């Protein structure tokens, strides 16, 4: 029987009763079990969850969820924000206990785990936000709190022994740095390696990576995926949580998809594909790809132009770049290649150390972000919570902030004018919130990003710069943001999008400029778009 091509398996099913649904899920789980030929199907699972349910006040976070992880298996765990991934992680980490269901770890059944129990049975986490002391060196981080001590009353750390203990761990994760490197000087991917080495040091049998690649540049992502393969070869299981589906595709033996707290489906090795995952995640197919592949349009006049701009990050490297009206110019490159710094100069946050800017062919001098805003140059910054919005202010207050005098009579703020503007943006952007008076801190990442966009769309953008606009945002909201960017470009706005997400850069841009160590290493037109070309330029080589 050929189950794996049975479309029923990942079709969302409505109108089933609970028992039926469970039976179907269990069945589909079993079928997949035999599909994964890579791993010996006879091996007993290291971890299995059965019928786990967890509710929070007002929400069912997980409902009748079951999954298994076998030794040496890499599980891709995907789902939109709010699908229940974090709840699942909290249960596995012992931070919270489920309302019902069983968790079997290494043959022992539990009602719930404790933090110590989880650690003790060899479950280790590498979180999106890394838990490293960046003022300490690698070795000190890996064995923090468990340092080997010298004999004697002073409990001095035995540094020599520490180093010999750390060396093999670093080798296993393929680290290209030594044990006494300061963590602060490491790249993000290297820091993740330290975290993984830390997990290995406690003899982890299951490593859970939560969005490890979301802030990694392209080249470093490959390194991380290699580390995952090395773990697998050592018989260590991995749960890989990611929004970047092509990476999941590359590395996972099996993909578990969560939707609305329930198991939406499991895909065996041969079924894993971008479209299937997306279909399971959102219960329908997305149109974003078709939209992105429209023919290249005729370029408009140059709106913003950089003439030999030198940023504080790379004072010796002048940058020339034109952003044209009506186009989305993708700005790709490795993290640290100077893209954000360039955006900061365009937005008047930093001043250029030389060269000049032109807007619509006229010289432009920016003394502050206020000057840029006055000229219609807007920035949606990389760090939403730190610089994009004020979490303590309401949606309405955030949206009116850059244009407050227009919402005031005799310099007294008019609440009704503010509300009117915000309501308009809320409706236009589909911001999901009880009202425009809601504190933005309580919104999801996608909705917060829409507030940032709304604050600029309420004014008249001429040049819109978006720095990693969809980072940490779920797939549905991503598509909406792409749609908005396209609509802006169609309305004649010059859009500059900085992104480390290869799919996004290629799928959304009309042209791609690639930065390498502070300089534009090349500009690709639509007919030369390919991952390979972008990557080659990003590392400073010429494209084919």
């Amino acid at each position, binding site marked *: 029987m050929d189950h794996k091509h049975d479309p029923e398996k990942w079709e969302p099913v409505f109108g089933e009763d609970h028992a039926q649904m469970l039976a179907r899920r269990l069945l589909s789980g079993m079928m997949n079990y035999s599909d994964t030929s890579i791993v010996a199907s006879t091996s007993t699972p290291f971890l299995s969850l059965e019928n786990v349910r967890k*509710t*929070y*006040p*007002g*929400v069912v976070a997980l409902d009748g969820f079951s999954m298994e992880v076998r030794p040496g298996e890499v599980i891709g765990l995907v789902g939109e924000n709010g699908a229940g991934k974090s709840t699942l992680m909290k249960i596995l980490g012992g931070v919270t206990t489920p309302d019902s269901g069983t968790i079997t770890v290494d043959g022992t059944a539990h009602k719930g785990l404790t933090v110590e129990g989880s650690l003790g049975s060899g479950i280790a986490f590498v979180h999106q936000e890394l838990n490293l002391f960046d003022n300490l060196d690698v070795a000190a981080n890996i064995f923090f709190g468990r340092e080997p001590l010298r004999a004697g009353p002073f409990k001095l750390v035995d540094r020599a022994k520490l180093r010999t203990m750390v060396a093999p761990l670093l080798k296993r994760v393929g680290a290209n740095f030594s044990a006494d490197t300061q963590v602060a000087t490491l790249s993000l991917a290297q820091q993740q390696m330290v975290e993984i080495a830390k997990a290995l040091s406690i003899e982890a049998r299951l490593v859970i990576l939560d969005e490890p690649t979301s802030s990694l540049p392209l080249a470093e992502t490959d390194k991380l995926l290699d580390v995952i393969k090395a773990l697998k070869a050592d018989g260590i299981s991995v749960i890989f949580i990611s929004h970047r589906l092509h990476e999941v595709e590359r590395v996972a033996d099996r993909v578990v998809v969560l939707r609305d707290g329930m198991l939406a489906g499991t895909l065996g090795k041969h079924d894993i594909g971008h479209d299937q995952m997306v279909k399971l995640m959102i219960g329908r197919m997305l149109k974003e790809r078709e939209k992105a592949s429209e023919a290249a349009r005729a370029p408009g006049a140059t709106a913003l132009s950089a003439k030999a701009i030198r940023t504080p990050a790379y004072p010796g490297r002048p940058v020339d770049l034109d952003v044209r009206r009506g186009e989305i110019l993708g700005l790709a490159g490795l993290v640290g290649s100077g893209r954000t710094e360039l955006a900061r100069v365009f*937005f008047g*946050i930093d001043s250029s150390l030389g060269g000049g800017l032109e807007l619509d062919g006229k010289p432009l001098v920016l003394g*502050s*972000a*206020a000057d*840029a*805003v*006055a000229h219609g140059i807007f*920035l949606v*910054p990389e760090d939403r919570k*730190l*610089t*994009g*919005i*004020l*979490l*303590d*202010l309401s949606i309405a*207050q*955030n949206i009116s*902030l*850059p244009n*407050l*005098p227009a919402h*005031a009579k005799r*310099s*007294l*703020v008019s609440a009704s004018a503010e509300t009117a503007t915000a309501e308009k943006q809320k409706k236009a952007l589909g911001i999901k919130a009880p009202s425009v008076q809601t504190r933005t801190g309580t919104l999801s990442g996608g909705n917060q990003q829409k507030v940032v966009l709304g*604050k600029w769309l309420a004014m008249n953008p001429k040049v819109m710069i978006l720095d990693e606009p969809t980072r940490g945002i779920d797939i549905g909201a991503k598509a909406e943001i792409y749609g908005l960017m396209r609509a802006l470009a169609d309305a004649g706005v010059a859009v500059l999008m900085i992104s480390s997400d290869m799919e996004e850069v290629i799928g959304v841009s009309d042209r791609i400029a690639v930065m390498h160590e502070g300089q534009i290493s090349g500009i690709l037109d639509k007919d030369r778009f390919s991952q390979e070309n972008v990557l080659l330029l990003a590392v400073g080589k010429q494209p084919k």
Partner: protein
Amino acid sequence: MSKKDLGLLILILVVGAIVAIINPRFLLPINLANTSNLIGLFGILSIGQAFVIITGGIELSVGSVVALLGTLFIDFIAVREVAWPLAFVLILVLGAIIGLVHGWLITRLKLQPFVVTLCGLLIYRGVARFYTADGTAGFAFGQNFPDLEFLTAGRSYGVPNSFIALIVISIVMWVVLHRSVFGRYLYAIGKNEEAAKYSGIRTGRVVMAAYVICGVLTALSAIYFAMYTRSISPASHGQFYELYAIAAAVLGGFSLRGGEGSLIGVILGTVLLQELQNLVNLLGIPSSLNFAVMGGVILIGVLVDQQWGVFRARRLMVDATRKSAAGAAAE
């Protein structure tokens, strides 16, 4: 009026009632007039401080500025015989310049507010003492300024004019802080200066303006204090006044991290502080314990406020859990 302010008002009334019961002299017109005069003087000072604290800054030089500008004011009108309205304006301008310099050092040269104003505290005190050669500035015998004295130390219908001045200033500053574009900028900067900058606000100018407002209000209160004491020994005049102002703001619900607090709060904070001073005098508590009483009350106040917040958050959670449990049972 927020719940926090209401709680503070109730505390003031309860403490007042207790003091009045133990010592009925609390309610004598003369006592009330004296206390409200002091509330007026310290209130003006505290409003200025509040504008700086809302941006996440702090102004420690207030007491020394009161000493320096008070000394200069008396010197101008008593010794140099400058017409008092001119001297009045001159002092306010000096206050504005001090604020401008502080704001400039903090926003342009990126020095920390604590450091800048701590240096100010030392410098202005030293200059004031040097100016009078460590002597006392005061009026000659028989020297009179009837209009000025009426405006600063006089009373209308039994109410001290300093208190009336505070009310007028409070209303104006309430509108500025809670209704104006500038006020919104102040809160935004206090909450997150970076995000405010990325929203196109000229944060440097706004913060500088806050220090200028603080400087002008401090200068105004310096004149009031000078006309109240009528003689100033610059070594001790106005000492610790910055701490009174900061205490009033903290009692009134301001966060020293910035972005939080209301004008009514800082006024009520001032009222409570002066009430406590009065209490120490009226209940026969040794005046040496004055500061200890004040410190104790502020500590308890801040603690209760914080614990109340924790309690409320917990109760909300419990309520929500109960509701969802009831909902599940109903299904």
